[in-house]
């Protein structure tokens, strides 16, 4: 698109990864659990193993939900940036293809929220 601005725009990508002090932003959303109104945003080192995300990071925001402790992590269906994928738990986020501002969604088959309400 042609830029329509009197004097153009300054080049200021405010959320480029360099601004996050070695971290990258990762969003994580739990499908069919709308008690959490939106996906959560986390600043994480790209070298963090995927397992670290699952066991260290996600519980802090998700474990208030009664379904969380019932999750069978081997059956979780993961979607990374719109494509289903199978994370390697021991590899880093980066090596799993999780980039800056990637959105990870996960589905937990059999767990459909409080009383099956998708909440």
């Amino acid at each position: 698109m042609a830029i329509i601005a009197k004097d153009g725009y300054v080049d200021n990508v405010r959320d480029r990864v360099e601004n996050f002090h070695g971290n990258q932003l990762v969003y994580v959303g739990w499908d069919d659990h709308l008690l959490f109104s939106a996906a959560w945003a986390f600043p994480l080192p790209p070298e963090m193993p995927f397992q670290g995300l699952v066991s260290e990071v996600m519980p802090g925001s998700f474990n208030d939900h009664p379904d969380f402790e019932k999750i069978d992590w081997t059956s979780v269906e993961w979607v990374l940036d719109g494509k289903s994928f199978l994370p390697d738990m021991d590899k880093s986020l980066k090596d799993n293809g999780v980039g800056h501002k990637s959105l990870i969604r996960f589905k937990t088959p059999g767990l459909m929220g409080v009383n099956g309400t998708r909440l």
Partner: protein
Amino acid sequence: MPAKKLNLRKRYELLTRGMGWETTYQKMDDVFPYDSFEGIKITDWDKWEDPFRLTMDSYWKFQAEKEKKLYAVIDSFAQNNGQTNLACASYLSAIKLFITGVTPLEYGAHRGFAHLGRHFRGDGARIACQMQAIDELRHAQTQVHTISHYNKHFSGLHDPFHQFDRVWYLSVPKSFIEDAMSSGPFEFITSISFAFEYVLTNLLFVPFMSGAAYNGDMATVTFGFSAQSDESRHMTLGLEIIKFMLEQHEDNLPIIQRWMDKHFWRAYRLLGLVAAMQDYMLTNSPMSWKEAWEVYFVENGGALFEDLSRYGLKMPKYHELATAEADHISHQIWSVFCSLGNATGFHTFLPTEEKMAWLSEKYPDTFDKYYRPRFEYWAEQKKAGTFEYQKGLPQLCQVCQIPMVFTEVQTDPMQISYRVTEHGGDKYHFCSDGCKDIFEHEPEKYVQAWLPVHQIYQGNCGGPTLPEVLDWYKFKPEDSGDYIGSKDYHRWQEWKGADKKVKQA
């Protein structure tokens, strides 16, 4: 018989024609450097006409009279402790959101119109914008004056302008007005005067202020309706400028249509906050968001666009989605506030049984099915003492900056609506196709967005912990959290208890 004074039209013409001139020492394009880069073609500014034909002397006369009336009400409200006549002190959450989220918009609009009042080449349009600049400043001031009375008695009203520039949910109105203010003058006026004021402002001021009356808040009703009396003039200006641009040159149509699509969606997203105010924050709601949307957008907005169709202008893009969302957005926005209520500058509270019955009645297709269960679940938790605010910072939409809470209402209302695009090697996330389109048309503008969640993680908001961030917002501990048990609540109970004793005596 005394000599008849000049008629309205003549007086208005004298005011607005001949106040400008063709400059000779400097080129006109240097004197008016802002009104051509957007591509809007104006061949004859003299065709501009303000239907209200308000001259400066009558403007001052009528505005002075409005002020006198307003301040008389404010004085008597204060003298008679009008705050004790509210339906409930929890209602003030709406006023807290208003003073922090809407009043700074008025001030932004003041600045924007002052700029236009200098930079439009046509003198008629300049005068209309100058009057509007003064109006908007008046609105900001009268709102501060009126609400300052509540600040003497209640929490959360102490630093609206400081908070507007910082708080996570206030970046929604801030980014809206700054998007308009950083556009060219024609886009600004299309955004504010037409998309916001003509198409949507009735939804903010009319049912909401009527709601204030319904909840015993005579102070707010008075400033609200006093502001709204100017608003009618602004709306008329908005309609006039659209018709003027469309009549001036056929090339203007696609530009205006795109602005219309963009600013309708921007303003509509902002009004999601108003939807929550109307349905949840008002103790008693005279009209639901959905009803207001039907009357003021579907019916009245529909009539407006039918009138404009003779110029080829179409209804704004995604208006059908906005109408479908009318069944959902107030519940979705209030849910996110309730779940993050330890980080809001106003009190949150779950809807009472009575309120939920009203919501079921007003939203028969959606409330019981999708939204009642979450409020009941939280209510049970509160009863059992296990309720906790959620721990985390939500993903935000790059354009409207609202947490990504909106869902696929047309296909699956329990599925969050995720949209994404790439630009310059980075990903950008959106709550809707409307916001995504806006980004994709001007990515250079929106990559600069100051997203509060990201700013916290970049270390620009006082510190990494919630108390540090809230302190940086100048939220005091008593400003946030549940209304029940708050300082406002206890004060209210004290007054009402005392009131009871007086009555018994």
